[in-house]
């Protein structure tokens, strides 16, 4: 009896595998199909970052649709890879490596959009670089990936074993954003004493570190600098600590997933009404929804969010067009991340076009690197020598009536933010 069930189970598993194998088979064997190029994205699709990555993927798909799914004679195929595992509910180094290797081996693949997490980029970058496959990230903000001297001494050289730069990103880096946030606290909020929190992750701690470094120069005293436990149920004891220091602003380097809303709620219910400033990891509706009406109400104290670009409703030109189309298709205003995905894919498609539409990774790579004065949804920008966007425009936002409201632009279009 038991044997029977076991073998039945095994049969089920095998047939599931076969079914799973089926749909991709024709693409590999069919010779009559039109020539195609593949763009893949590798983002954490399982678990807590799912809503952001969904909007990125929506953006990518829109960019491809705009081109009619074709460039020249080539059909553009898109594969949405997941670099998260269900057990972790977050990106997994093994899966990211597997994704990168799979893309590197696929002869039709000419572009890799990803990753979302900078840590994952560190794994994928050398693999893709060796394969000469261009990588455009819609989400990595760790400066060391591209900027010499910003991270470890051997960064970013180690991510470029082949010697050429094959990694580009359409988002401004943490060092710019952290400084902008600090400047805003000092100049606009008139803060004198800041309590800095971070989630101990690459992104959150990176920004908090920059904030801390910039603070003395802006006349802000650092009342405290603490890494929190992003899985804690509440932060009331920390709030008590913050209250006892008399800080007049709280900066949290973290994301919605690492409990930014919970900190805000505990601050407010603990009677602490100082402004609460967070980076773009919280620039999504989920943050407002997670925090709830009371914590976001103006009488509880103000809330600010920095963002590496302009919010959707402030976009003009192509950006505004994108927002319109997105609204029409999905029935909602796109989240901030959608634009990044859209822009990353658009720049890639543009490069494929300029590379005379060939299945040639080197040509595509060269074309991406040569991107100059690109008229995208995020404005007009170029890739600099490191592979970073020259777009340094930041915005400061707040929350008003349950919606993000633009406060001011900061950072400047081309100037150095520091």
């Amino acid at each position: 009896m038991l044997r029977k069930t076991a073998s039945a189970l095994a049969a089920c598993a095998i047939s599931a595998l076969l079914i799973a194998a089926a749909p991709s088979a024709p693409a590999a064997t069919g010779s009559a199909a039109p020539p195609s190029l593949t763009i893949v994205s590798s983002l954490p699709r399982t678990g807590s970052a799912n809503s952001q990555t969904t909007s990125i993927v929506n953006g990518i798909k829109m960019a491809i649709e705009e081109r009619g799914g074709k460039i020249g004679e080539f059909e553009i195929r898109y594969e949405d890879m997941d670099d998260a595992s269900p057990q972790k509910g977050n990106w997994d180094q093994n899966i990211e490596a597997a994704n990168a290797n799979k893309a590197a081996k696929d002869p039709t693949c000419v572009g890799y959009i990803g990753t979302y997490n900078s840590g994952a980029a560190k794994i994928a970058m050398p693999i893709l670089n060796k394969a000469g496959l261009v990588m455009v990230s819609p989400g990595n903000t760790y400066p060391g990936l591209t900027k010499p001297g910003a991270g470890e001494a051997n960064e970013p050289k180690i991510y470029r074993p082949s010697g050429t730069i094959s990694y580009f990103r359409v988002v401004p880096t943490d060092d710019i954003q952290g400084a902008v946030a600090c400047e805003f606290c000092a100049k606009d909020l008139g803060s004198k004493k800041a309590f800095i929190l971070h989630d101990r992750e690459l992104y959150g701690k990176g920004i908090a570190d920059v904030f801390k470094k910039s603070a003395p120069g802006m006349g802000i005293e650092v009342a405290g600098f603490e890494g929190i436990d992003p899985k804690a149920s509440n932060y009331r004891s920390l709030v008590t600590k913050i209250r006892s220091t008399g800080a007049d602003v709280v900066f949290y380097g973290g994301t919605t997933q690492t409990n930014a809303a919970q900190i805000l709620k505990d601050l407010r219910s603990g009677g602490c009404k100082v402004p609460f400033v967070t980076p773009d990891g919280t620039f999504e509706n989920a943050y407002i929804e997670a925090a709830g009406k009371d914590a976001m109400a103006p009488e509880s104290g103000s809330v600010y969010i920095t963002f590496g670009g302009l919010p959707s409703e402030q976009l003009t030109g192509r950006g505004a067009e994108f927002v319109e189309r997105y609204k029409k298709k999905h029935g909602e205003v796109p989240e901030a991340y959608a634009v990044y995905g859209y822009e990353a894919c658009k720049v890639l498609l543009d490069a494929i076009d300029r590379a005379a539409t060939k299945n040639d990774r080197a040509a595509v790579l060269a074309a991406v690197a040569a991107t100059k004065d690109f008229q995208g949804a995020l404005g007009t920008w170029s890739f600099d020598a490191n592979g970073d966007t020259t777009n340094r425009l930041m915005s400061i936002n707040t929350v008003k009536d349950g919606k993000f409201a633009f406060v001011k632009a900061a950072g400047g279009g081309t100037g150095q933010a520091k």
Partner: protein
Amino acid sequence: MLRAAAAADQLAILALARADSLPAFASDGVLSSSEVFSQQLVTGLSNGMIIALIAIGYTMVYGIVELINFAHGDLCMLGAFFALTAVGAFALEGAGGAGGTAGLVALLLATAAFCGALNWSINRLAYRPLRSASKLSLLVSAIGASFVLVNLGLFWGGLPMEVFAGGTSAAAPKAFPALVEPKPAFTVGDVIVSRPDVLVLAVTVPLMLALTWLVRFTKLGKAMRAVAQNPTAASLMGIDVERVIGATFFIGGALGGFATVVYSIYNQTVGFQMGYRMGMDAFIAAVLGGIGNLPGAVLGGLVIGVVRAMSDGYVEARWTNAIVFGLLILILVFRPSGLLGAKLREKV
């Protein structure tokens, strides 16, 4: 790039920011050191009491089937989603006064029933077929059940309801309305004892008393203790062991249901991944007190709550987890069966 039209509006926002950045706190005081200590103690005890409430349900099930029930925290998580759905469906938010209190009591009872029934069903489907198998197989089954529950929580968060913000970002944490407003119930100096703190106490203590009564004096309680000691002997004495186990799962789950409502009101957040920490804290509390020991679980919960608060307040938040676990290991080195656990004597 800027739209000039919005500029005035923005300046107004900034002016508002400057204005309210000054009065940092209602009574405008920077806490004195003794007040900080008292405030941390209040926080620690409240959090500890919630942990204790989850831990008793956990330790009850452990006592009877010796299962490290990994799904317990995730069960509580689903309970929180159930409660949030109920809050949305019956518009419990903002119903003040007697109606609000009645609503709250109804919510507590309904969630308890839901969690109890769910726990009973999980036992039926995932644990009962494994009664004669090794404990480790049971453990893996519990791990599997916990994954399933987490996924159900994710689905639940995607329901297109207003309380779930339309469900568009299912994975994001959801705000749980402050059914008991986080206003001070009373203050001592600058130390706040908030209304949710009082709620925690008001739910936890009666439940613990009721549970003690149940285990000590009712027929079911006696049967539960008999099954915990020796299932074979209990069944020879005419006790329907499976029914008793099922009842224990129901009661353990129901306690989790009460706990999760209190937890949600206290923290005002629910999310599909919150079960991990809830279950983990309950597990630590139960072990610290001596697994299967009800007063032990309460003591363990309180200890953990207070240690967490003190560590956050006086050491550094980033070391809190390590300190809690380090303390646990240290206690177990000296007292291998927990604080109140009986010394195991093997029958030879």
